[in-house]
């Protein structure tokens, strides 16, 4: 009897030692809502970056900005639910041999040049200065990096005869001074129309945003979440979320609740559906971007 028990004990120990693989965990494949979050504005006070953001929905690090052609069809919905429509086209070319430095020696960007005549859908784009703002030593400054091409139509600003056509193609043409002519079509995505619902309450720590939009013909859309500074009429970009174009996304309380209402009084959700392409040319990379944008401002509870 004792022998049997000893044998049993040894067998059990043996099995324990050798037999115990942890059962393989089941890995589930990603087929859900993917939302990629990115921090945009790192410092509220740094208006340097506010340059890169406006209703064009483009936030870019100016230093790394390639040559850019961007056309956008924009809608903006205000607090009261009124929506304005805009169309915007922009093209910027940089001469990377020419650095633009701040007095303090900080690299602000590169000189933006006008290599020829640009037209979108046969409408010639205007040449305007490329202003930027930056903060150095606590002081806000203005400067220009050069010039850029712009076309704009909408309630505010210049009224060019330029209209962004969604779900179609628009043409870009450049007549390079002393050079060739380049012309190509830029496809435009289906117009995006979003909807924002703020749910929960700050007290219960479950303030969250329920976002809906119409599904379109891109794989993903981007939603930029910004907030309006309380004492300034300035929208500060906070995060960018890239998500599948499946029509809905919940922004969890983490992201909404944390926004300090001492600094901000409104949130802006900007839905962007974009076709983007980067073309290599002799003069560097050329990014072609065509987007449908819908910005919605809501009160921050």
């Amino acid at each position: 009897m004792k022998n049997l028990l000893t044998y049993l004990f040894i067998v059990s120990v043996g099995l324990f030692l050798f037999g115990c693989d942890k059962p393989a965990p089941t890995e589930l494949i990603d087929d859900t809502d993917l939302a990629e979050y990115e921090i945009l504005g790192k410092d509220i006070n740094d208006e340097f970056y506010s340059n890169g953001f406006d209703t064009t929905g483009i936030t870019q690090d100016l230093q790394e900005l390639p040559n850019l052609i961007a056309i956008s069809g924009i809608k903006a919905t205000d607090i009261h639910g009124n929506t304005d429509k805009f169309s915007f086209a922009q093209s910027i070319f940089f001469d990377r041999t020419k650095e633009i430095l701040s007095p303090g020696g900080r690299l602000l960007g590169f000189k933006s040049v006008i290599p020829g005549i640009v037209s979108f859908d046969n409408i010639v784009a205007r040449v305007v200065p490329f202003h930027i703002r930056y903060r150095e030593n606590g002081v806000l400054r203005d400067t220009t990096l050069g010039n850029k091409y712009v076309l704009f139509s909408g309630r505010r600003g210049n009224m060019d005869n330029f209209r962004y056509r969604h779900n179609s193609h628009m043409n870009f043409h450049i007549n390079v001074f002393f050079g060739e002519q380049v012309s190509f079509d830029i496809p435009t995505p289906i117009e995006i129309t979003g909807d924002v619902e703020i749910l929960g309450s700050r007290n219960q720590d479950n303030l969250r945003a329920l976002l809906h939009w119409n599904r379109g013909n891109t794989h993903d859309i981007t939603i930029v979440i910004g907030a309006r500074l309380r004492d300034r009429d300035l929208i500060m970009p906070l995060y960018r979320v890239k998500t599948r174009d499946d029509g809905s996304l919940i922004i969890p309380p983490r992201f909404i609740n944390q926004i300090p209402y001492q600094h901000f009084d409104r949130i802006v959700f900007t839905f962007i559906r974009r076709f983007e392409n980067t073309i290599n040319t002799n003069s560097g990379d050329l990014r072609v971007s065509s987007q449908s944008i819908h910005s919605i401002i809501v009160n921050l509870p």
Partner: protein
Amino acid sequence: MFANVNILSQSSFGLNGYWGLSPNFNTPLYGYESNTSNYSHVRDWGFSFIYGVEFAKSTNSNIYSISLSKTLGNHNLSARFTPGYQKEFIFNTGESIVLEDSTSQSLTASVNYKELFGLGYSYEFSEDFSVGTTFRFFTQDFFEEIVTPVFEDSLIFFVRETKSEKVKFWKGDLGINYALNENLNFVFSSINLLNFGEKADNSDFKDLEIKREVGGMIGVNYLPIDAAAINLIYETTGSYQVAFNGYAGNLGFGMTLFHDKYQDPEIAGMIPTISYKGEIFELFVSGVKYFSNRKKEFGVSEFVQNGIYNVLNNPYSFDKVLLTVSFNINTAKERTVKLIDVEIVKDIYPTFSENFIDYPFAYGTAVNLTDEYLTVKPMARIKGVNEENIQSPVLAIAPHDTARVPFYIIIPESYSSEKVELSYADFYLFTIADKPDDQFQKAVLVNSINSWDGKVSNLRYFIKKDLDFSMSHAKAVLSSNKTVLDTLPIALENFYKAKILFNEYVANLVYISDPRATGEYVQFPHQTFELKGGDCDDLSVGYSSLLESVGIQTALVDYKANGKVRHVNLLFNTKLSPNQAKVLTNNDTKYFIRESVDGKDEIWLPVEATSLTDFKTAWKLGAEKFNKEAINELGIAKGKVNIVDIY
């Protein structure tokens, strides 16, 4: 994100299939899933473990369960450790972040559901009815990587955090097992009746928590013939199992089909099992085969939407092959013989020591429970009297036979209690081992050393026990009369010695007819000497002892009562032949002839020991009584007068 994930703790799915309340096998009963009421056949100790291989993308092996069970009388306690009962899911939370270097990183989450261990208790009211309960302990390990924006002063940055929580809870259920008859039995038990423990704090995890939907389970086990059983188990939560078992000798096989509300197809899978039952162990080899493709890729969204209901048996479970081994360990030896009853046939008179050597003092009724001839060694022991067990002769009992076993006892010489003691005797039957197969205890009255059962034939024990005292006393008396004795012819030695001793004896005594000194109490000679008196038993014993101690043969004469108090006096052997009677007396009615062992006629004289006068008177009185009652009234022939020789 994690909403709507339902996890239900174990329903009745068991890794060995469902065997109902199989009378032959202990193994399936270790599974608390189908045996919620902890029903058990284990007679003493039971030990079981399940070792299995799971056919996931890779094959991995595990100890699924280790169980221990102990039966104490009608109670059974069990404990089960289940390292293999776990299911982990790893998936991306759906969020990813863009890092400093512009690369994207997905955030992961995992949930690990484990059943760690369980405890069971049951009470068997009768062979047909038992009630029990099981408690099982679960942990849920939640883990999630999240990113949170932090607004600090004027800076914003993402902080990556891990949220984790370990939520533990207990699940308890009650069950009843009832056998209607030999062929049909039922089990009724609860599902998720008792739940207590923690709840998840984190809202994300709350949705993942195991749902505790209360339900009930009914099992039916039907044996149409000895060799086959049909079992059915139905849960009110919507699942059921159907099983068929067959038995052939030591082998058994079973097939269980189960339906799970949350799995496809209708019959989600089967569990075929082959079993073997040895003397002390049982072996089960079973397989779990699902009827749907388990190795395909599963998406997070489906998991999140539907959830799982059972840690061990869910849409994500893999096919398995299992080996279960159970051991039945009886630390108690099989009983081979049973001692049903013991009858004490003798009163214990400590002074009658020789009596016990020849005759048993108790008889036991023993039954041989085996199929073979059994040799039993009876032993007995009286508390307060014996320090060790006293062995009685070995005897053989035929298979399944009942035998009357004699138990002997020895009263040690050293026993000297003068009080009547109520003690108890332990009777044992040994076969081979050093522990008895069975034992019996009976109260026994141990009389004092002075106790007497009234039989004059037993007075000799009192005479013989004190011989040393008498011898020294007699010798002292005789040596002080040496001169007289030396002048006598040797033939007359006995007579004169008897005379001298008697006269000396009575000189120191006063006759007392003490109520205490009745037929139940007899003094030892030294006591009579110390007390200076006694009744006819005491005085006859005392005088006889004196004579015997110097080699004079004596016999007690028992005048049985015929309405009067019984009386005892004695005869002693003068060793004179009838021819020599004249030396003693002129009256031939005063002596009696008895033939010795070697055929010689010798003259015996009766002496009335209670006559505390002198030898002459005592002899006279003794002779008259003997003549009248023993001889003339044919007392000896009629049994009214009995001569009891002291030897």
